[in-house]
């Protein structure tokens, strides 16, 4: 029982990331009809927004300490962050410590701007082109973005820690009456799950309770008719692309303390997120979220030693096996609608 609870908890954070990425993918596919293979790269750029903010806040001035020698025998350089100089050592250190949550403020405008530029500069020219063309061009864009990040940030993972207050883990099992150390869960992963719930809830509320959202939902149902009603669908589509980019970016920002960002992380999530979208049902937002959590938790279960002992290698293929089973039983996915990608 404890192992089951543990793996459900484990699946929640990965499921959160899948759900957030798949949500953006579905938004773009549902409103614009574009299959965006650069969406994983947006998740990665979000993560590097956090890296950038951390580096900016850690910018330091150099003083020489002649009493100590560096590796070449020269006076040692002492680095003092500017924020510690400006705000005092304690406040400065606290600002650097909270760099990941602070990155959200930086990432939102950056990601929306990237979304706008991508949509206006590239994607809009492919609305009427076949999906294969869209996949090729967005995949190419993803590789370009990935290589740019690698050029400027290097290939190795970069540590971007959570604030001290959220480091470590708590004994979830003891709350439920289990022995100590049986079910432990890192604080930041809970934060990530809560953050994902807020973002997903916010997106749904935005689509459900605003006029803009109503038009978008109408557009997702029948793009042509909405266009015929004289609504400037282009501008709304651009805004939707910016919103989807922001959701992916925020997912990336908050994911950085869980796994150190590297230039390849977008690709790692992209394929699985597409599987999530297909399993959830093309164009279905609730489907994307449900499938994200379902597959995240199943993947977690499949990596248990007991399961792998029964079926070796299952942890590598579980998502695809489940996808095949679900699509055989329900060709439109869990909550897919009729007519989407069936022409």
């Amino acid at each position, binding site marked *: 029982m404890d192992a089951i609870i543990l793996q459900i908890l484990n699946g929640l954070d*990965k499921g959160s990331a899948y759900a957030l990425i798949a949500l953006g993918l579905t938004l773009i596919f549902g409103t614009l009809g574009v299959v965006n293979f650069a969406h994983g790269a947006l998740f990665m750029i979000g993560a590097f927004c956090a890296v950038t903010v951390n580096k900016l806040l850690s910018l330091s001035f150099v003083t020489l300490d002649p009493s100590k020698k560096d590796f*070449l025998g020269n006076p040692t350089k002492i680095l003092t962050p500017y924020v510690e100089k400006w705000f005092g050592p304690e406040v400065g250190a606290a600002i650097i410590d909270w760099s990941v949550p602070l990155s959200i403020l930086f990432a939102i405008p950056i990601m929306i701007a990237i979304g706008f530029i991508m949509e206006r500069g590239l994607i809009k020219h492919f609305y009427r082109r076949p999906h294969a063309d869209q996949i090729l061009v967005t995949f190419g864009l993803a590789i370009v973005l990935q290589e740019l990040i690698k050029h400027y940030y290097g*290939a*190795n993972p970069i540590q971007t820690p959570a604030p001290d207050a959220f480091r*470590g883990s708590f004994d979830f099992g003891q709350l439920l009456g289990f022995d100590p150390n049986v079910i*432990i869960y*890192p604080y930041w992963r809970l934060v990530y799950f809560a953050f994902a719930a807020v973002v997903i809830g916010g997106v749904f509320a935005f689509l459900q309770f605003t006029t803009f959202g109503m038009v978008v939902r109408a557009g997702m149902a029948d793009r042509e008719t909405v266009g015929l009603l004289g609504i400037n669908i282009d501008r709304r589509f651009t805004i939707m692309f910016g919103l989807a980019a922001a959701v992916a970016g925020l997912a990336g920002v908050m994911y950085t303390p869980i796994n150190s960002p590297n230039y390849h992380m977008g690709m790692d999530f992209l394929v699985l997120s597409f599987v999530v979208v297909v399993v959830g049902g093309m164009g279905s937002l609730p489907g994307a979220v449900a499938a994200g959590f379902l597959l995240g938790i199943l*993947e977690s279960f499949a990596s248990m*030693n007991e399961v792998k002992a029964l079926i070796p290698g299952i942890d590598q293929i579980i998502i695809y096996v489940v996808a095949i089973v679900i699509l055989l039983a329900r060709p439109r996915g869990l909550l897919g609608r009729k007519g989407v990608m069936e022409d």
Partner: protein
Amino acid sequence: MSKNNFTRRGLMKTGAIGGAGLAVPTIFTSNVWAASHTGFTNAPQGDTVTLGFNVPQTGPYADEGADELRAFQLAVEHLNGGGDGGMMQTFSSQKLQGNGIMGKKVEFVTGDTQTKSDAARASAKSMIEKDGAVMISGGSSSGVAVAVQSLCQEAGVIFMSGLTHSNDTTGKDKKANGFRHFFNAYMSAAALAPVLESLYGADRKAYHLTADYTWGWTQQESIQAASEAMGWETVENVLTPLAQTDFSSYIAPVLNSGADVLVLNHYGGNMVNSLTNAVQFGLRDKEVNGKNFEIVVPLYSELMARGAGANIKGIPGSQNWDWKLENQMGDRYRGTNAFVQSFGEKYGFPPSQAAHTCYAQTLLYADAVERAGSFNPCAVAEALAGFEFDGLGNGPTLYRADDHQCFKDVVVVRGKENPENEFDLVEIVEVTPAEQVTYAPDHPMFSGGQLGSCNPGA
């Protein structure tokens, strides 16, 4: 003991193989070396000689590859008489004079292994066939090293491997044309075991997470054997995919497994991520079986330590070399400071162990050519096999003839608790003498392969 001449026996062997025809590889049909009638692949014809440096320029180990490339460039500069000469000044064999190799100016070409065996083979093949490389060196993955070593054997060029730690490179996959300066998993385990016992005692239960490829397998096998020999129990060994980025589902079951030590047989990005996950799950703060829970990372690298940040503090592991070795452990490790000075002046930071092993391999190759008086791979192999040397930063070293593995002291390290600067992440715990990490050539962990005969190619 050094062999200073290209012997008559070696010459006869070369002639026999070259004349046999059967040994000539069929995959190499380039007319680049067909025109050189000197009996071996890519014999230098003019006043230059070309070396091929095959390093990961893309992929997850690109930073390591970049450091290797810096070291290669520095070595070539020194061989051609530039810079301050680096470890050429301290190398016990004083054959290198800064006039290239045998008077020929050293040039080099580079390839990208991408940390993929097939890509590494393709780039090595291209450097041999199209660019006329007479020697291939570099790399940071054992999978790549084994693949490229095999290709060099077929092609008839010398392979001076870079960072490769699997037992197999000089074990079951050893080749006569291949030489490894870097240490291996067995040596790590032999050096680490006594230190682990003194740190954590002989009554421990270990849980292994292991990268699922040649290096992971051999390291896990070595660490398990060495730790069980001192009384530890192995609770579980779980193989993890190389492409894995989130290890939380592998880490979570560790605590209720009864284990009180986690051994991470991971490298590079894998290690950074698995260690980060382990720390997040509070493993280092727990008490199990009445003991503090501990984590061990058998193969360390400075670049990985930088990636892991504060999580690496206090964690033990092993290294082939460390830039602080001579300052902290004395003159036995001379050459270290000369190399650090050269590298640091040129690039602004200390070299990694990947850089060090690649620099050393380049000098060792050049020196072997000078001593043999020939670029012929069989002459070079004969000069390297059984060669004893000093002054390249590791102390007295033997290039064993039986398997072309270097035997030297192993550095046991720990993540530093209070680093004084960004380059000071690792502290040296002790240096294990070469005798304690030496094994018989027919040791079971290294059996199953044959060195075979050297192949001069054309």
